[in-house]
């Protein structure tokens, strides 16, 4: 019991959200400043294509520094709970999968795989329910958008 109530000797050193956010903006500003070097800057009187991006990068650096300096007053950065991360990572992976393969294997097959993965494996929905829903959604949405609304969706190598 005594151990539970004993105050911690070390001050809490958790990263603050504004410090993290400010650092992110600062890095982005520096990156844009570096990348902009290939674009002609022009002059203040006759700005070139690199002028506005540099101006914005400088603003971003200034805001980043202000946020870092004022970071102490913001709340600590909460670690992302596993329940959220265990969903967020596969969902993002599904987006990447679709972006990589949808034009190669077609809309219907890629959506069938993605929906099947999300419903059957991530959400552990009953296999028959997952299969029925996956089939209905992937085929039904293709029919609705491609066939009915004439929005062309990719068919893949084998025309399906």
């Amino acid at each position, binding site marked *: 019991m005594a151990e539970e109530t004993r105050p911690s000797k070390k001050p809490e050193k958790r990263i603050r959200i504004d410090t993290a956010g400010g650092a992110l903006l600062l890095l982005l500003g520096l990156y844009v400043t570096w990348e902009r070097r290939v674009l002609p800057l022009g002059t203040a009187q006759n700005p070139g294509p690199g002028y506005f991006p540099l101006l914005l990068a400088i603003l971003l650096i200034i805001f980043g520094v202000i946020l870092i300096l004022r970071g102490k007053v913001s709340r600590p950065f909460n670690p992302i709970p596993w329940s959220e991360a265990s969903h967020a990572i596969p969902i993002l992976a599904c*987006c990447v999968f679709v972006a990589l393969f949808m034009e190669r294997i077609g809309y219907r097959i890629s959506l069938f795989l993605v929906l099947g993965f999300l419903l059957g494996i991530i959400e552990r929905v009953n296999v028959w329910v997952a299969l029925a829903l996956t089939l209905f959604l992937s085929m039904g949405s293709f029919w609705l958008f491609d066939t009915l*609304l004439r929005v062309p969706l990719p068919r893949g190598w084998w025309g399906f």
Partner: protein
Amino acid sequence: MEVSIHNLILGFGTVFTISNFSYAFLGCLIGTMVGVLPGVGPLAGISMLLPTTFGLEPTSAIILLAGIYYGAMYGGSTTSILMRIPGEAASVMTCIDGYAMARKGRAGPALAIAAIGSYVAGTISVVGLMFLAPPLARFALGFGPPEYFSLLLCGFVVLSYMTGGSVIKNLSMIVLGLMLGMIGIDQMSGYFRFSYGSVALGDGLGVVPVAVGLFGVSEILATAGVSGKREVLKPRLKDLLPSREELKDSVGPVGRGTVLGFLIGIIPGSAHIISTFVSYAIERRVSKHPDRFGTGAIEGVAGPESANNAASTGALVPMLALGVPTGPIPAVLLAALMVHGITPGPLFIKEQPVVFWGLIASMYIGNLVLLLLNLPMVSLFVNFLRIPYRFLYPTILMFCVVGVYAVNSSMSDVWIMAVMGALGYVLRKMDFETAPIVLGVVLAPIIEFSFRQALAMSNGVYAIFVERPISVAFLILTLIMLLLSLKPLIVKKRDWRNRLTEAEKEC
């Protein structure tokens, strides 16, 4: 162009065709569903469904998309009242007294007043839009590049102040959006900027993949793993009618909410959200029994619900008259019009009278449809809330992919959506508002072009921005807003923006 019987006849003549009337009805129906379902806001809803309008006439397309927009404002109240979860952000304040009324068995009257208030506010604000947009457009015909630059600069500062939360964070998100908007070919010199040899990036980032990523995908990433069934209170149809006293108590809040909402709607920022907060605060202040607020006061439902509908119409004024969107949703609507080859701006009403007056007439019809749709069908919409989110989010993700891909039939847009989804998720974790990014992306080419064109006009003399009266007026307003935003650094007192952020977190 004056508001005349001829124009109204033109508008109603456009809407009263079977197809356009059906699109108005369909837009309202989809909008209500979008509003009812938590996690699918009007912005993601409109962006996802934008490709379905490509085959339509421009008038039909804008009627459908605008229907989704104001329909979502009606639908959002249902979830707030019955579940204490705002269906969309503008219904946060309705959670407080709406849910308290529902707990007392008065869910029906709360829903009815929300629908009636929304109808009255929606209809009156369309009258405002009808009378205000044409003269504003005429006035804006005198705007040159310096005026547009100062107007946009002023708009950005007002937006960062009015969005709530930290002004520095909001400004940085606008700058981030502007930076993303710099990607692609430079209009004046023809240089490719930050495109790394990619043809798709050379065209610039589209507003749809950015909006769907930031609002659709990031919302899914943040909420998919959150478990927990929440109780849905089911209203009985026979209990829908409010009592005479409740109706009497709602008249003032609806009137005040309408005027307030419409005026706030014109200002850049999250107008539809802010208007509900201001309306709630005013109703509480003018009430003879402020202690009733929070325990189920009908005024706490009537005012904010009227205000958010009026604000959503008010936000269309600058978009249609000036071609300048004041929030992310009008920005996507603007993009939708541009897809159809129409560029809103001062000449829009004059050159496209069928589209403008057709939209106005469709909004009169749409508000009536929504009133008739919401009350009897509320039990049906409630059933959507019973669909577990684990079934819902894969479906939403599918719509995100289709919506984004179909705009340009480009996989690059799906990549952009995924990257924006991840970025939005990270930014949310750091309490950044993502709405200003969308606006920045849309307005980046306009503000840069105006700036460089103004300097070209003046042979590089910056005095052009302060020599022209309209431009200098906008710059003075910008300065005032900047000084106002510095106030919290000097005065350590919670202002309305802190309270708005707290209220949003509470719900």
